């Protein structure tokens, strides 16, 4: 039922890559942009092709466009207007909705992202550094042959060793939760919740509310596509480690504080199942490490604090309409790891992530606005997400504890938004449609 041969692999497949590169492009003339796109489509693998070749595959390429990018390719006014308001405005204009204030405001972002010149992203994931290098040179040569395509900026991404598990710079294990999507044939891990209709993540299919409606026009452009929120978060590892040392007298206490902020121990073991002590065996077992809920077993947050990151990002059975609020996450870390014991060196490191969903306003923006940055989430009063919320030193973190709760005040910012954008990730046929738009259509 799902057209795996038309959906870009990026939506459905985690590839065995430890390295990659994102390139952000601008097109001068529509025909030039289309010329570049036409030559790169064959490199963009569908979910079916990527799955079939996953053992031998060395590199994987994805392409997505901003709204100004669709316009720059020559898409006609009627089609452009049929895209939703959130995508048309772009992430920088939605700063107030997302809570991107202070140091996170688009005025402070890396240059080139907050303006209309950002048209496309090409995402490369590679099995190893040699392949990334080869592909980078190949694309550079290709751009040299296709005039009118400017490289606005780029970012090399690298997994943090050891590569047995995905980790971020703070040391947290990542990628433990995935929304279970109906029709993909992927067996969800216990605790993933009921299967979610594909239309929540891919345009053209029924979603939790019913048959697809109000999709961008024409159908060939929107079918099998999805929206993608790109977010580059710098991670202030020195500040994070200093915070743990300040609030934990022993290494065990520091790990406990780290766990309470996230909702999982850094090993990945969930507090919901291991509230007092870390349990690496639990963390390593996908049949157990995601199998928990909150409403009956932990309504007050004694195990997983109400404001902890994973409880905010996925309130599970304590949120209404949760089936309409799930998102697919992709992405990677960038920058060299800061060795344990080393002082903060000021080197830029962090995560450059993508959130994929069929409706930015209903899924991604809702999570940012209502769960991450609302100080009154769960009636906490003065708390934002401790890891990715906009922290300015005035917010708290309550850790329910018997006999008396622990409240940390004046949380520093562990992350800063350095750039972001809203992209549309088209299906393969849609990419061909865009590459062959005629001038007279405008």
């Amino acid at each position, binding site marked *: 039922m799902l057209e795996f041969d038309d959906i870009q692999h990026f939506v459905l497949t985690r590839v065995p890559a430890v390295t990659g590169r994102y390139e952000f492009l601008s097109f001068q003339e529509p025909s030039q942009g289309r010329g570049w796109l036409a030559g790169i489509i064959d490199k963009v693998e569908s979910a079916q092709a990527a799955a079939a070749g996953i053992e031998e595959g060395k590199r994987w390429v994805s392409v997505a466009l901003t709204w100004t990018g669709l316009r720059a390719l020559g898409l006609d006014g009627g089609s452009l207007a049929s895209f939703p308001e959130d995508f048309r405005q772009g992430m920088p204009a939605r700063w*107030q909705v997302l809570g991107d204030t202070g140091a996170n405001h688009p005025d402070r972002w890396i240059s080139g992202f907050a303006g209309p010149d950002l048209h496309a992203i090409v995402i490369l994931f590679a099995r190893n550094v040699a392949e990334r290098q080869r592909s980078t040179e190949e694309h550079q040569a290709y751009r040299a042959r296709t005039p009118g395509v400017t490289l606005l900026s780029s970012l090399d991404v690298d997994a943090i060793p050891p590569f047995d598990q995905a980790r971020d710079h703070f040391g947290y294990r990542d990628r433990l939760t995935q929304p279970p999507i109906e029709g993909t044939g992927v067996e969800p891990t216990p605790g993933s919740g009921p299967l979610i209709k594909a239309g929540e993540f891919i345009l053209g299919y029924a979603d939790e*509310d*019913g048959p697809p409606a109000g999709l961008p026009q024409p159908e060939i452009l929107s079918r099998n596509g999805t929206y993608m929120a790109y977010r580059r978060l710098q991670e202030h590892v020195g500040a994070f480690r200093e915070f743990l040392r300040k609030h934990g007298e022993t290494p065990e206490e520091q790990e406990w504080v780290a766990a309470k902020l996230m909702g999982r121990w850094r090993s990945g073991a969930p507090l919901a199942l291991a509230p007092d002590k870390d349990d690496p065996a639990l963390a390593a077992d996908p049949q157990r490490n995601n199998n928990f809920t909150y409403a009956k077993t932990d309504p007050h947050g004694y195990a997983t604090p109400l404001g902890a990151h994973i409880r905010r990002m996925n309130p599970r059975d304590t949120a*209404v*309409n949760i089936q309409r609020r799930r998102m697919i996450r992709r992405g990677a870390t960038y920058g060299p790891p800061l060795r344990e014991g080393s002082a903060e060196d000021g080197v830029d490191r962090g995560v450059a992530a993508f959130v994929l969903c069929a409706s930015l*306003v*209903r899924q991604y923006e*809702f999570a940012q606005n*209502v769960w991450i940055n609302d100080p009154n989430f769960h*009636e906490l009063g003065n708390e934002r997400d401790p890891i990715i919320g906009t922290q300015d030193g005035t917010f708290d973190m309550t850790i329910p504890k018997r006999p008396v709760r622990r409240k940390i005040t004046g949380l520093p910012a562990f992350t800063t938004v350095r750039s972001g954008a809203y992209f549309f990730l088209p299906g393969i046929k849609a990419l061909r449609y865009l590459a062959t738009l005629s001038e007279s259509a405008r």
Partner: protein
Amino acid sequence: MAIPKEGYFQLEQGRYGPIYPRTPANYGFTIIAKIKPGRETAVREYGATIEQAVAGQPEVLAPLRLHYLRWVIFDVGSGPHFMYQGIFDTDFDKYLEDAVALFVKTGITTVFVNLEGWPDDWKTNLPAVIKFFRDNQRPSFLEYGEYPYVTADEVKKALRVKSALSAMLDQMQ
């Protein structure tokens, strides 16, 4: 609290429109719309429909985090109008989709089909439904609360504590 004409002190952009501030009467909205000709009785009958829905499932309106709901039909010379006034603990902009989903589930949405301006494709066109609520929302210019900024959950909790304490004191006699 006296509130400017727009309904807010400073424009703060929400996902679907301006954010209305929390007042001593928490959050609320007042939807006023003209009833389609001949539909007044149909609107009135919804009083019983909602009563039955709540009787059948007391928690059904919980996602709206309501303190009070008042539905009124009035005619001040230009035909019958429907006023839906709600006072609740959640920011209108944040929970619009959840409210609409709830309305559809309980049949409340169908009271709105009797109002002028309600979109015909309401079942598939959420943005149009949201626009209807936003367009017909009349912000208040004065709000007062005798127990200001207190949520319904806090009130219920306090009452439970009071009731438990009373029971305990009685048992100590």
